[in-house]
């Protein structure tokens, strides 16, 4: 009986991990595959593949960084009572309402090698951030961050505080309560925020244009390339790839939302 339960549990865990893995594979695979399969468009793969892979190179690290920072900030906002809490939330949410060009302008101000922060980051990274992939990643991270932060905060606030208290009452220190209780119970909301953040990073345009410079073969992501090739046939392949990636991301949220607690 016990062995049977253990096997069922293992299968369920594997199913859960497989769901996420399959979703990611579907997203990347469909994007890659459809670009190839677009009858008549295969000749454009040479044009499309560069922006496609660059978009992944930008969106994946941007989502990871925005996710970690967003969950940490969301946790602090949900649980912390510290001075400047409202200021942190307001500043963190600005990228949602500010025009992307304004964000791009401020990022240029901060990241340019002539500034104190930009000079420091340039020395750390070993090359200029502006007009580089690193700059595109920063722009996409800033765009994705507020979605991750706000979703995490909301999800963490929704966790029953009595369950957290019960965990403390059995001796778990606060950091273990956060890792073993709060975050797992808030995971659906956090996953939704990550997915929307990822979709935002995939489609980032304005700030990326200003910080990255839309350099062909270097910083031209799919959303930039679509505008650049608006009058050419390969735009259809690019549009379809972005749409499929967005559909895969939203399907992922749906699957995670249906996974049992």
């Amino acid at each position, binding site marked *: 009986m016990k062995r049977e339960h253990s096997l069922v*549990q293992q299968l369920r865990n594997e199913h859960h991990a497989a769901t996420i893995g399959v979703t990611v594979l579907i997203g990347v695979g469909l994007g890659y595959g459809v670009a190839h399969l677009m009858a008549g468009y295969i000749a454009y793969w040479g044009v499309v593949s560069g922006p496609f892979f660059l978009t992944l190179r930008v969106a994946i690290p941007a989502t990871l960084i925005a996710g970690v920072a967003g969950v940490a900030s969301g946790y602090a906002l949900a649980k912390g009572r510290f001075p400047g809490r409202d200021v942190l939330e307001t500043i963190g949410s600005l990228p949602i309402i500010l025009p992307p060009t304004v964000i791009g302008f401020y990022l240029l101000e901060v990241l340019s090698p002539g500034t104190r922060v930009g000079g420091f980051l340039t020395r750390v990274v070993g090359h200029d951030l502006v007009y580089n992939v690193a700059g595109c990643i920063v722009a996409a991270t800033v765009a994705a961050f507020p979605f991750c932060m706000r979703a995490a905060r909301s999800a963490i606030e929704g966790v029953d505080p*009595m369950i957290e*208290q*019960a965990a*403390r*009452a*059995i001796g778990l220190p606060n950091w273990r309560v956060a890792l073993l209780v709060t975050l*797992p*119970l808030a995971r659906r909301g956090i996953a939704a925020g990550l997915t929307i953040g990822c979709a935002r990073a995939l489609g980032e345009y304005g700030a990326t244009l200003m910080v990255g410079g839309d350099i062909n073969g270097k910083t031209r992501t799919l959303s930039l390339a679509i505008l650049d090739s608006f009058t050419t046939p390969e735009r259809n392949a690019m549009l379809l790839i972005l749409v499929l990636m967005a559909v895969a991301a939203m399907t992922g949220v749906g699957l995670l939302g249906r996974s049992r*607690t």
Partner: protein
Amino acid sequence: MTALDVHLTRTIGEFDLDVAFSVESGISVLFGPSGAGKSLTLALVAGLLRPDTGTIAINGHIVTDCASRIFVSTQDRRIGMVFQDGLLLPHRTVLDNVALAVRQSNGRQARRAVARTWLERVGAEAFSERRPGSLSGGQRQRVALARALAGDPALVLLDEPISALDSAVRRELRTLIREVMISSGVPAVLVTHDADEAEELGDVVIGYNDGRVTAMRVVERTNDTGSQSEPFDGTEP
């Protein structure tokens, strides 16, 4: 040694709690009507809330002393706690829930072995790999009892642990709680508003009413199967 020594006041809105009592080993029952301040006392003993004034000592160790600004965190009070609705972690298995509470063993396997032992003692080993959501209320409270004891606590607090269950399961769990608590030797404080439950489970019954201790009585027992006392109404005779 005194298992628990309480002298505290706490005001919440219009309600004033002002209680003082000491209990020894065995099961001490805080008995009184709803809203008398029993569960509030338990939350203050657990460190989930802070009193306005007073002291709390568990096994002779001061864990709260408002005058000296001493407040030991809930995690460091070495308590185990059973809540009315269990409050198990819904995303972890029963075994994980209990193993997380084990403090004295190093290593995951050792902790799980201790957890299994406690699950066996409360008759919950059969569903150790299931999640709390698939258990009945009585099964969940068995697991909650195992979890409370698995951490080698100095004191176990039980906040109306069986009041939400049907009568047949309540009878079953009363017997289980009494047996497990007495055999473990860990002192316990149990909150209830049920007079029969207070008599059956308690070695000492402390009557509560409107935020005050109104009576305190030792329950006479000829053996461990039940009390020989007259029913207690929470007031001094």
